[in-house]
């Protein structure tokens, strides 16, 4: 019945024409995740366009304008299974103006698959993708050197690309860095091992994905439960009930645990932990639960339930990395809304330190304003003190978005350093 599968989320990135949609089409097709009616629909469109072979990219290009232009516009999510895993792919476009989508896809991913065209080698886009995966804290990066069929399966481009990325990783290290020579179009080393690359003894992409450590040790970290909503039933039966609903972002919690509420530093004790009607022995990240406490405290959305021994930091001045999403560049000292987890306040960016140059991956001292798709380091000031952790320690309490108060759009994303 496949009831106990592990969930792996990964993101895919590549430049235009690197064959990303084809690769995903290939993964789905060879893992038998394409259904007959989908295949039929794609065959029809492929025939109409006069293609000589089945255009696997059509499985993923969802919007009509994408199918017409042959490019992917927006992040699309895909799903497939192997007996022990459920996979969620965040398929992100390679177009330069859509780089914000890679940040979006990477923000929830356990792994990143980066495509490089064997003929072109490393481009600025490859550096950008590597950097974003690194910055967003992705532990496993799989570099697929694609279109091996077009270089006659020669090992030379593969090793050149590998060497160059290893050099970059010395400055920007990731825990798990893997290189695979593939042809998404022909299927080499995607799901089936290839006879065309005898010089490669590693695993196929599918085998690699199945073996990715999910690094979900967040239940061992310090306790962080951001209060989302207060449940007050107004029923005779539950007259005094007050439940604090939230997702455990880090740590484990049990009945009887001593907790400290931030930012008020009030102490209390957990009297029950439940998920719906089921009272739990213990609960841990990433479960969404409700807690009841011994004391009647003034505790609302935006508060954090923590352990007194392992408290988060509190400050209204933060050192952050920001990725900008909006056509209108960032303005220093302008008022924005900041949202971190369930907490919200106003903020200003008060100092700019550097911007990332994607040609060299160096920190560039620039006072030019941060434009769309750029990333830089800043000092930010919030209207009220923020309770936070460093992004590298706890993702959820170390990340935030910036919202424009006039348009309500999400205009930037940040990570606390």
């Amino acid at each position, binding site marked *: *019945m496949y*009831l*106990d*599968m*592990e*969930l792996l989320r990964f993101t895919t990135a590549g430049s235009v024409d690197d064959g990303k949609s084809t690769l995903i089409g290939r993964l789905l097709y060879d893992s038998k995740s394409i*259904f007959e009616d989908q295949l039929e*629909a794609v065959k029809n469109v492929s025939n109409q366009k006069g293609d000589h072979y089945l255009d696997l990219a059509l499985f*993923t290009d*969802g*919007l*009509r*304008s994408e*199918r017409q232009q042959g490019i992917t*516009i*927006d992040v*699309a*999510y*895909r799903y497939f*299974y192997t007996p022990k895993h*459920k996979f*969620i792919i965040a398929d992100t476009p390679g177009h330069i103006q859509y780089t*914000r*989508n890679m*940040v*979006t896809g990477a923000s*929830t991913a356990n792994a990143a698959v980066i495509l490089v065209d064997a003929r072109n080698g490393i481009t600025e886009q490859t550096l950008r993708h590597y950097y974003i995966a690194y910055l967003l804290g992705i532990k496993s990066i799989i570099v697929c050197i694609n279109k091996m069929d077009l270089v006659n399966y020669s090992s030379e481009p593969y090793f050149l690309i590998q060497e160059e990325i290893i050099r970059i990783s010395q400055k920007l290290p990731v825990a798990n860095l893997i290189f695979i020579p593939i042809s998404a179009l022909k299927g080499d080393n995607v799901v089936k091992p290839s006879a065309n690359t005898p010089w490669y003894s590693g695993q196929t992409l599918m085998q690699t994905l199945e073996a990715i450590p999910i690094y979900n040790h967040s239940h061992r970290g310090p306790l962080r439960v951001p209060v989302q*909503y207060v*449940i*007050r*039933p107004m029923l005779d039966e*539950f007259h*005094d009930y007050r*439940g604090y*609903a*939230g*997702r455990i972002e880090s740590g484990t919690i049990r009945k009887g645990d001593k907790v400290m509420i931030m930012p008020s530093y009030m102490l209390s004790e957990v*009297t029950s932990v439940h*998920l*719906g009607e089921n*009272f*739990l*022995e213990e*609960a841990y990240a990433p*479960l*969404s639960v409700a807690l*009841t406490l011994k004391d009647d405290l003034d505790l609302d*959305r935006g508060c954090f339930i923590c352990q007194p021994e392992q408290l988060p930091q509190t400050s209204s001045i933060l050192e952050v990395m920001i990725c900008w*999403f909006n056509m209108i560049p960032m303005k220093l000292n302008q008022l924005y*809304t900041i*949202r*971190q987890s369930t907490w919200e306040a106003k903020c200003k960016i008060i100092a700019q330190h550097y911007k990332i140059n994607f040609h060299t991956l160096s920190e560039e001292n620039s006072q030019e304003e941060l434009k769309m798709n750029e990333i830089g380091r800043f000092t930010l000031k919030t209207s009220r003190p923020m309770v936070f952790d460093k992004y590298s320690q706890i993702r*959820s309490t170390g*990340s*935030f*978005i910036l*919202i424009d108060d006039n348009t*309500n759009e*999400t205009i930037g*994303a940040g990570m606390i350093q």
Partner: protein
Amino acid sequence: MGEYKALFTIKMNHLRELEAEAIYIIREVAAQFERPVILFSGGKDSIVVVHLAYKAFWPAPLPFPLLHIDTGHNFHETIEYRDALVKKTGVRLIVGSVQETIDNGKVKEETGYNASRNVLQTVTLLETIEEYKIDAAIGGGRRDEEKARAKERVFSHRDEFGQWDPKNQRPELWNIFNGKKHLGEHFRVFPISNWTELDVWQYIYYERIEMPSLYFTHKRKVFCRDGVWLAYAPFMKLKPDERVEEREVRCRTIGDITCTGLSLSKASSLEDIISEIASSRVTERGSRWDDKRSDAAMEDRKREGYF
């Protein structure tokens, strides 16, 4: 709060992770919006959403009403299930009637053999959203259902005309959902975006959720149109070569009776359904007439404000 009875231990797997994500999203709606509803169609996805919402707020009752857009062309089993659910949970039910929209002359009923009220639903839905000043409508849409849905956000913005602009969607990072909007705009929210059909049935099995009888095999009067088995109802027009016969069928999706294809199946239990889906070669929407109209049929309807 009474004493602790039997304590449960939770084993983490993909279903528990999807459940935790969905409950988080539903609670975000309660926290960020003033007048949310759950769109209830009587199908498995909306039943799962109601179940998740119940878990999210227990012991409090559901903090939002159900909204059913009634085409008037329902399976009677759907209405019976809906009414029983309302009675059991005490939740408030709002019904938007497509018949009324037609009677008021706002839309014109389709004619011909493939006449369906499926497209007309959008008008009734948008009218009801305006009438009740609904600012968030929680739906059971899943990204694996259809290509256009694969690009939809969890918090999906709709302008004051109810339209979806797929090229200008707000980026969604981590678990931070931005539901800020101007007056007159609303959001569609999809807590089970990341679930597949298989996940939904596994979860139903896991949680022992009671399902409408339509999903299990039963004898029904049906006829075959262009390779799709449709349920026969007296208001449906048959082509000369179509014959009504009795077959053992079940629904894989439940929608308007005029466009819901049935599959010939002997699956009589949740276990049977799960193994049927795990080995299935056709998607659940493969038998939906509404999607077959053109390659971009779903995208067009969604842009205009469809579910």
